C-alpha cells in the first residue's frame, strides 16, 4: 500500500481540496493504483544518475531593470470574485 486514507487526507489538506468521505474513498483507490503503477521506477538503479534540471541546453535569459508594467489595477481586479475599488477581498485570515 503506497498510500493510506490518512495520508490522502493530509495531501488533500496540503492541496487545499476538501474531500467528503465518498470522494476520499474513491480517490484513495485511484491514488493507490497510480502510485503502484509509477513505482515500477524502483526496478531501476539510478544511484549514479544526476537528475535532469532542464530539458533545453541553455542558460537563463535575463531582462533589463526597467519599469514597463503596472498601473493596470482595473485589469488586475476585473476578474476577481470579490473586490472593491482597490483590493482583492478574501474571508478573514485567522492567524
Amino acid at each position: 500500500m503506497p498510500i493510506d486514507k490518512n495520508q490522502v487526507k493530509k495531501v488533500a489538506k496540503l492541496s487545499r481540496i476538501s474531500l467528503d468521505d465518498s470522494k476520499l474513498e474513491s480517490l484513495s483507490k485511484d491514488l493507490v493504483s497510480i502510485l503502484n503503477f509509477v513505482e515500477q521506477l524502483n526496478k531501476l538503479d539510478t544511484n549514479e544518475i544526476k537528475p535532469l534540471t532542464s530539458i533545453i541546453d541553455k542558460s537563463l535569459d535575463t531582462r533589463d531593470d526597467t519599469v514597463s508594467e503596472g498601473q493596470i489595477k482595473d485589469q488586475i481586479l476585473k476578474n476577481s470574485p470579490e473586490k472593491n475599488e482597490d483590493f482583492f477581498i478574501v474571508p478573514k485570515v485567522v492567524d
Partner: protein
Amino acid sequence: MKDKFDYFIKTENNKWEVIIGLEVHAQVTSKSKLFSSSSTKFGGKPNTQVSLVDSAFPGMLPVINKFCIEQAVKTGLGLNAKINLRSIFDRKNYFYADLPAGYQISQYKNPIVGEGSVTLDMPYGTKKVGIERLHLEQDAGKSIHDLSPDNTFVDLNRSGVALMEIVSKPDLRSPDEVNSYVKKLRTIMRYLGTCDGNMQEGSLRADVNVSVRKEGEKKFGTRCEIKNVNSIKFMEMAIESEAKRQVELIESGKKIVQETRLFDTKKNETRSMRSKEEAHDYRYFPDPDLLPLEIKQSFVDNLKNKLPELPDKKKERFINKFKLTPYEANVLISENNISEYFEEVIKSADIKLAKNWIIVELFAVLNDKNLDIKDSPVSSKNLANLVNLISSGEISGKIAKKVFELMVQSGDEPSKIIKDKGLQQQSDPKELEKIVKNVLEKNLDKITQYKAGKEKLYGFFVGEVMKASSGKANPKLVNDILKKELKK
C-alpha cells in the same frame, strides 16, 4: 561598555548561553521586480504596481531581472562570500492570500551565494560571524486585516519584489551582537547600494532562530524561529524573552518544541503560530518555468573590480592614515555619506578639529533634527571653512559654536555670518590692552592672591577678559598681554 563578553541567562544553578542565527530578508534596490517589469517604489496606491505576472494570471511566466542578479553578487562579494556560477530557482509551495501563484520563487538547494563572513566590532574585540548563504527570492503581497471585521484585503504591490535572504551561521550570542550584526549588514549593503536598509518601509526584516544551552556544552539545543521581526529593537527584545522562555521550560523539566513563533511587541513575548502548526510542507522543486542561472566568472570579476571601498577597509584606512581611534573610525564609516562628508571636510581642514566637529557638534544637530548627513544644513565646504577659521585663530572655539549655530539655522557660509553678526575676533593689541587693564583694575585683590602663588586664578582673568569682549578677543593676544601685565 563592557570589555568582556558577558551575556548569559543566569538562574539559581545554571548559566545559559544563548545561540542565535539570523535569516535577514533584505529588499534588493532595483527599479523593477525580480521576475516582472512593474515598479518596486514604496507607498504606491494599492494594486497599481502589479503586473499580470505578479498576480499570477493563467499562462504568465517569470523573466529574471539582470540587475537583481548583479545586486546579489555584489552583496555576496561584500560578505566575502563564494559566488556560485550556477544556481537554481525553486518553487516554495504554500497557500496564502497574498501569495498569488500559490508558490514563492526562491532558491533552495543551489543559492547564488555560498559561505562568507561579516566582522563585528564588539567592545570586547572583533567577532567574525559566518554567513551560510545568500539567495534571491520574491516578496509576497500584503494582507490587511484591520480594514474590516470579516474580511482581509489584499494588495499585491509588493508581490514579486526581489529580496536577498541572508542566512547567518548560528554564531551570534547576544542581543548586542545581533544589533551589531544587522547594522553591519545594513552598512555593507548601503555602501554597495544593494539594499537601502530602511526598516520602516520593510526593506530589512529578519527571522530570528534562538536556542539555549548550558555554558560549556557543545551540542546545540532545540531552536525556535521567530518570524518576520522588523526592527533591531524588537529583535533584541524577542531574543531576550524567547531565551528566557526556553530556559524556564528546560529548567522545569519540559522540552522545547521546534516551531515557528511570533513576537508580540506589546506583551514583549513570543507566541506559537498555531494556525501554521498544521503540516508545513513547502514541497520545494526546481521551477520548470526557469532554467538554471549560469553566470560567468568574468561577470563576477567585473563587479568585483567596480566594488567601492567597503566599511572594514575604510575603517582600517581611517585609523592608519588619519590617526582616528577605532571608535571614531567606526562612527565615521558607519555610513558612506558620513565618511564621504568627513573626507570632503578634511581635504582642506585640520583632521583633529574636523572629526570632533563632525562627531560631536554636527551629529548632535542631525540627531536632533532627524536628518541624514546628505541633507545637513551645514555643507562639508562650510564646515571646513569654519574649522579653518578656528585653526588659524581667527575665531575662538566659543565664537565658533555660536557661528555654527547660525550656520545650522541659515545654511550660510561662516565668514558671512561672522561679518553680518560682527563676530570677528578682536585682535587690535591696543584695544585688548585696554580691556585687560580694565579687568585687572577691578580685581586687585585677586592679583595679590595670584602673585602670592594662587596660579589657578590665571584662568579666571582670561575668562573675565573674554567675557568683557563678548568672547571675541583673540585668545593668543589676550594671553600675551595678560602675562605681561601680571608680571608688572
